[in-house]
């Protein structure tokens, strides 16, 4: 893979630094175990507010594991253990007094494989509101339109909101999942390789969407695709074998990597 070109970078549109909390999410000396298998090794990084942070690295290096820890989705797996801490807005997500449900309402998530519910498009979008007990028709209607517009899907589905979500194409389903994730206006949006199952046209639509969304949300995106990281992110973290190798502004990672491993990876010499 060729080195990314400067025109690929998104920093031109990035907001002026200092406007937002540069350490909105803090990963502090964080280690993580599946059983006895330690997959994250004493990670430490700060993720800034309302910017796109990309996690890159070869398969199995622990990108998804870290991402899923940010909203404690890993709790669902048996025999996991962690050391260190993660804070969001200064508060530990492992605080026993913190409702994990409330945490997840704050942090939306889009999965690698689109996973619409076996319900109508409409019901998929309003699911987060319904489980929160918000059932007012006008509010829901409004949220559906706003979320679907936010996910650039409104024009394509506005006439069949009450049809099954399974009637949508793969790319539309993934954008529906994004609409669903932003319906309740979370603060943070986690995306785990959201485009890996999509064709190039659908991918570029989602990437455009990420540009739009970052005005409102703090986005953390895991990706495999170097150009994508370069195109959409403001900061990039490179992981290798469960260790954070290098974390810097995206142009620096791609144009000017400090670590030889990073250099080797972004220039496509291994991966």
């Amino acid at each position, binding site marked *: 893979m060729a080195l990314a070109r400067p025109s690929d970078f998104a920093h031109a549109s990035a907001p002026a630094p200092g406007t937002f909390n540069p350490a909105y999410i803090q990963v502090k000396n964080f280690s993580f175990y599946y059983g006895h298998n330690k997959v994250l090794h004493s990670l430490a990084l700060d993720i800034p507010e309302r910017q796109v942070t990309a996690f890159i690295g070869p398969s199995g290096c622990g990108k998804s594991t870290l991402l899923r820890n940010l*909203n404690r989705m890993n709790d*669902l797996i048996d025999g996991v253990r962690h050391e260190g801490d993660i804070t969001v807005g200064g508060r530990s997500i492992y605080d026993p007094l913190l409702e994990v449900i409330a945490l*997840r309402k704050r942090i939306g998530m889009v*999965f690698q494989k689109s996973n619409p519910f076996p319900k109508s498009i409409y019901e998929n979008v309003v*699911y987060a509101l319904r*489980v929160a007990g918000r059932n007012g028709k006008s509010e829901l209607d409004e949220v559906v339109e706003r979320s679907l517009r936010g996910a650039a899907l409104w024009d394509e589905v506005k006439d069949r909101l009450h049809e099954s979500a*399974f009637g949508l194409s793969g790319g539309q389903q993934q954008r529906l999942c994004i609409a669903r*994730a932003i319906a309740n206006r979370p603060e943070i949006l986690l995306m785990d390789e959201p485009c890996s199952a999509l064709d190039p046209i659908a991918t570029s639509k989602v990437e455009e969407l990420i540009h739009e969304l970052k005005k409102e949300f703090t986005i953390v995106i895991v990706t495999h695709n170097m150009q994508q990281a370069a195109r959409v992110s403001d900061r990039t973290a490179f992981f290798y074998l469960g260790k954070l190798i290098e974390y810097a502004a995206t142009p620096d990672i791609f144009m000017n990597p400090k670590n030889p491993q990073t250099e080797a990876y972004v220039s496509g010499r291994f991966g």
Partner: protein
Amino acid sequence: MPKDPQSDIPARFRVAKTTLLVDRFMNQFIKIGGLSIIVAVFAIFVFILAQVIPLFRDAKVEELKAVQLDAAEYAILGIDEWSELPFALRTDGEFLFADVIGERGLTRKSLPFVTEHGFGAAHYNQLAQRVAIGTRNGKFALVDLHYRPVHAPGGGRSITADPRPGPLYDIGRPGAPITHIAYADAGARKLAVVKQEPAENGGPVELHAVSLTQRRGLVGGGQISVDRSFDLTPLVPGTIDRFLVPAQADAVVVATTEGEIIYLFRQGDRFVVRQTFRPFPESPGPLSTFNFVFGDVTLVVGDQAGSLKGYSLYLAPGAEQRLFGHTKTFPAQKAPGTVFANSVRNKAFVVGSGSHADLLFSTTEDRRWGKSFDFAVTHAVIGGKYDRMVFLDDKHVLHFYRLDDPHPEASFRAFFGKLWYEGSPAPRFDWQSTGGSDDFEPKLSLVPLIFGSLKGTFYALVFAVPIALLAAIYTSQFLKPEIKTVVKPVMEIMASLPSVVLGFLAALWLAPIVETRVPSILLLVTLVPFSAFALGYLWTHASPRVRVLIPHGWEFLVFIPVLLGVGYAAWQMGPALERLLFVVTDPSTGARVADFRLWWPTVTGTPFEQRNSLVVGFMMGFAVIPIIFTISEDALSNVPQSLRSGSLALGASRWQTAFRIVLPTASAGIFSALMIGLGRAVGETMIVVMATGNTPIMEWNIFSGMRTLAANIAVELPEAPHHGTLYRTLFLGAMVLFLLTFLVNTLAEILRQRLRSRFRSVE
């Protein structure tokens, strides 16, 4: 030799011959296996159908022989119990026996007393093979026919008859001619009734009765003598036409020429009018038909237009005595019935008029057979085994018929409709296949059994479905996998418990406990779920500091002790609740007692039985829970993890995820689980047989039992004579069961497919 299709393919791409062979063989094997299952199911259905179809056949009747009798007038036609030697009694008192099987032709026997006193009237009792003959001068005698099989020396057997008259008794007005006679012998009670027309004196028609007693000799019966005489004439308004004496010898039923029926009943040493009624108020005039069907409880009456009705004796609600009431309406006859004969084996009878005869069945009002002959019928009789019929025509020819009607009681209405059975105050769905007496009327309605099956299934599912489903949801969505691996095999062991063991436990262990502890059970079923909900509520509202003490998936460690405690408390508090709420006055002692078993019948009016639906529901629930649990747990576990994650990531709780996402997605599988559970409950036999009283009642009362189709087959099939009506009716029950499950399964499958396409999830 055919060219090997693989010969032009490079060797490395060729498929090994054995692979192809095994593949082909397995294909065929699976095909044959599948087909043979279909064939087997179909064959079972065909077999059951073959057992059932004969029930719905009409009677088959064919003429075997015709014998020319003397050109004379005949009073009665009769037949022996072997149906080989019918007789006709000439009005000059001569018996003519016609050998319709052998070659003996006609044999005659005249009775000297008839020649001497003149023939007045005769009455034939087919069961006793006895004829009562009244003379022209006010006397009567009983003539025993003495039918007897005689074994010829060279083998073979023939029937002979030897009519021997008993003593002559005086009855009624001395010397007055008897024009109608009836006689009944009920052992201790014997009653002879005659109509006399002292025409010479121009007097009116008179009705007289005598009761007879039999002095007990040292060996056998002694002499019969007249005990008491009754003049019944004043009791009958209008002109006496005909009368009947029921076999119980306690009454006389008189028909007048005006078409009125007077029911005279003997009370001590006199007769009283118990009932007077007109079966056909719209058509006055003498009745055409006026006879009993076998059992002498149902009266068949016909008017001059050919209408035919049945009147049965029954005790109406609130009435003190059994009276005749209109219970049957038979198919109308083309002409008024003048000839009548009833079977002495069942409730069938023949009505004839002119050249037409119909064979009717009283219970079902069904016409079994009918025919227009090329002769005019004057007399008829049905063979004692309901396998022969004899008609006498106006040209004095005796026609001997074979009657082939093995299942006269069967009809669609008998199985699925309400019938007005003898003695019952209203039409009912009833199942009672066998009874104590010969004249018992089988009640073959399958409706109470279908009802019982539904009732048993209902109570089993009411108990099993919530427990099994909630357990499946909890196990699949909340429980730690370590515990899950224990729970599932335990449930599977539970599924393999033989139902006879469960039935045994239900009948001998559970039923006696439940009987005395109903209030405890009431508390249990209300308090335990309530405390579970309350505890759940408290738990979700508890401080996170408390909740972090228990890791996710181990919450049951808190719940179980609490629920056990509540259960124990509920059980112990039962008697206190009983003393508080279920107090009644014991009708026998007048004391106030706290006993649910007495309280329930007094308050609801429905019975309380020890072996009741609660016990069955509980035990059958036990049989059904593992099935529903296992299948629905699988269905729930198979919901893709990605859907659960998606829901949880949106901030839904585990319950919300379970109910809003997992349950609908697994609904097709859960539906199958319910249907398979339902099928098991409908077909379940041993538990029901053992844990209920098997009473075929039709009420939803939870404290009474039931009889299900399956239990009915198990209970009655061993007793049912091969290919008899009951045997075939049981097969009909099996077919109903078969169709019921087939219907339910088909509907379920359609619904399941719909659910499946609706909640098809991404793989």
